[in-house]
């Protein structure tokens, strides 16, 4: 559905997007992650047709964007950063205008608008000028604009930015419900969002792809992946804990034992393998007293930080 090859954008001597290639299939929700200034918005603008690439090809549903931009734009719903809209219009006027531009008139228009209003929960502000709406409503008006013509491709630049937790939840639900019918690209800073809605994530920094995989695959790259947390009971003295630590360190596969807090230790296994059965057996065999034991999946944000800081540390100051 979306095919990107060698996409590059230069602003003078500065390369904002550097040779990006990836595909997004129908049913996929691709999360675009990266620090500020990584090239996320620039890439999305190029795919939506607001910017012309310096090099590279963009094909949407098999159509080359440079050869037939209007046909491509009909297939895309694009939410620009900050969800801009004409503030002098009321919500319903704005949606009618967008519907007209997409060639929806009369009954078809009414159906499309009613459906979109329901999806984005805008019914209580329909007659209000967009200017006076709260940030959350403005964002939803932007979303309504993207969804109105039921496009095959959705490109959304930070769709949940500035929303409260309930609104974020609603929007994520909305995206998840549509996902099977569409190809979706969203950019975000919020890593829990990636786990919640993305079937795949790309981490970019300085315009380059640094990682590409499912959220699970990315989590496995975390230093703490399959780390084993053990909460010891309160009756363990400091020396008991030291003994436990020492005995754990003698085990095969145990790379390191880290003291997290008073009664809480974490075991880092060799090669991030799952050693929970070995450890729990060892604990009970030696009658060490513990409350709970659980496996760490690895945190996406630590993966994100590891990847983006290693690769940008020699950079000239974009991230710093």
């Amino acid at each position: 559905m979306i095919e990107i090859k060698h996409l590059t954008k230069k602003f003078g001597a500065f390369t904002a997007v550097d040779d990006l290639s990836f595909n997004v299939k129908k049913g996929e929700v691709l999360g675009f992650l990266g620090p500020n200034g990584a090239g996320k918005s620039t890439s999305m603008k190029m795919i939506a047709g607001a910017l012309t690439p310096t090099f590279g090809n963009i094909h949407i549903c098999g159509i080359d964007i440079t050869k037939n931009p209007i046909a491509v734009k009909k297939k895309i719903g694009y939410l620009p950063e900050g969800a801009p809209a004409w503030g002098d219009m009321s919500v319903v006027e704005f949606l009618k205008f967008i519907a007209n531009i997409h060639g929806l008139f009369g009954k078809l228009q009414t159906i499309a608008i009613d459906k979109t209003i329901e999806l984005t929960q805008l019914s209580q502000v329909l007659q209000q000028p967009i200017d006076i709406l709260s940030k959350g409503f403005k964002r939803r008006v932007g979303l309504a604009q993207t969804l109105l013509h039921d496009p095959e491709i959705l490109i959304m630049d930070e769709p949940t930015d500035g929303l409260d937790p309930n609104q974020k939840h609603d929007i994520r639900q909305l995206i998840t419900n549509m996902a099977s019918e569409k190809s979706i690209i969203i950019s975000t800073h919020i890593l829990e969002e990636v786990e919640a809605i993305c079937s795949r994530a790309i981490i970019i920094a300085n315009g380059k792809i640094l990682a590409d995989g499912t959220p699970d695959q990315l989590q496995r790259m975390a230093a703490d992946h399959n780390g084993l947390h053990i909460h010891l009971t309160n009756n363990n003295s400091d020396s008991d804990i030291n003994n436990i630590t020492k005995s754990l360190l003698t085990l095969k596969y145990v790379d390191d034992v880290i003291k997290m807090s008073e009664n809480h230790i974490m075991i880092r296994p060799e090669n991030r393998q799952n050693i929970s059965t070995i450890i729990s057996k060892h604990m009970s065999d030696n009658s060490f007293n513990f409350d709970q034991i659980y496996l760490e999946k690895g945190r996406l944000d630590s993966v994100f930080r590891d990847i983006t800081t290693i690769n940008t540390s020699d950079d000239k100051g974009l991230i710093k």
Partner: protein
Amino acid sequence: MSNIAIIFKREINAYFTTPIAYIFIIIFLIMVAAFTFFLGGFLLRNQADLLSFFQFHPWLYIILIPALTMRLWSEEIQTGTIELLLTLPINIMAAIIAKFLAAWALIAIALGLTFPIWITVNYLGEPDNGVIIASYIGSLLMAGGFLAIGSFISATTKNQVIAFIVSTSLCFLFTASGSPMIISFFSPWAADGILNFIINISLLGNFQNIIKGVIDMGDIIYFLSLIMLFLFATKLVIDAKKDA
């Protein structure tokens, strides 16, 4: 409905849902009346024509039209709605033409509301109504030229103040390029060809031909090409934005 009509409708609504249209029309009418009666001496001249009414239009337009056009594109760039226009399935030229036409329609309405002076002059004497109609058309064409210049300048900046000042200056230069002030600056050193060109591109010269009743194709073509030139320049500026 074509995209031009859809965007035209949106723009006209924007003028009338905000105070812009009302303020523009009222101020235009007050100023045009003040100029006609006090500076132009409409009644004192004791002539059955509207020369004292039309001759001040260029100077009024220099101030009022850039005030109308300064937001035309600057506002879209500032608020980010330009990105919507660029990513909706429309040809950007349709948006440029629609916005231009909506502003032009607003000026046509303001100009149309000056009809009492036409009635007055017909009541007081027997003017040449052909000349008056030609002058109205000439005034509207000139307004179109100023609008196109303003549209172009507005597309180059997101700052409305800059758009206003630069458009006013450019409109002034185009208006006054045939005036003694400008000519005396160029005449000592510029070649005759260049001097003639400067005199000929003057909006004022072409407009004065029309209000004197000498309406020829050349003047009309002049204004229409000025409009097309600057609307096309607007497109080039917006296209350049997609590249940089």
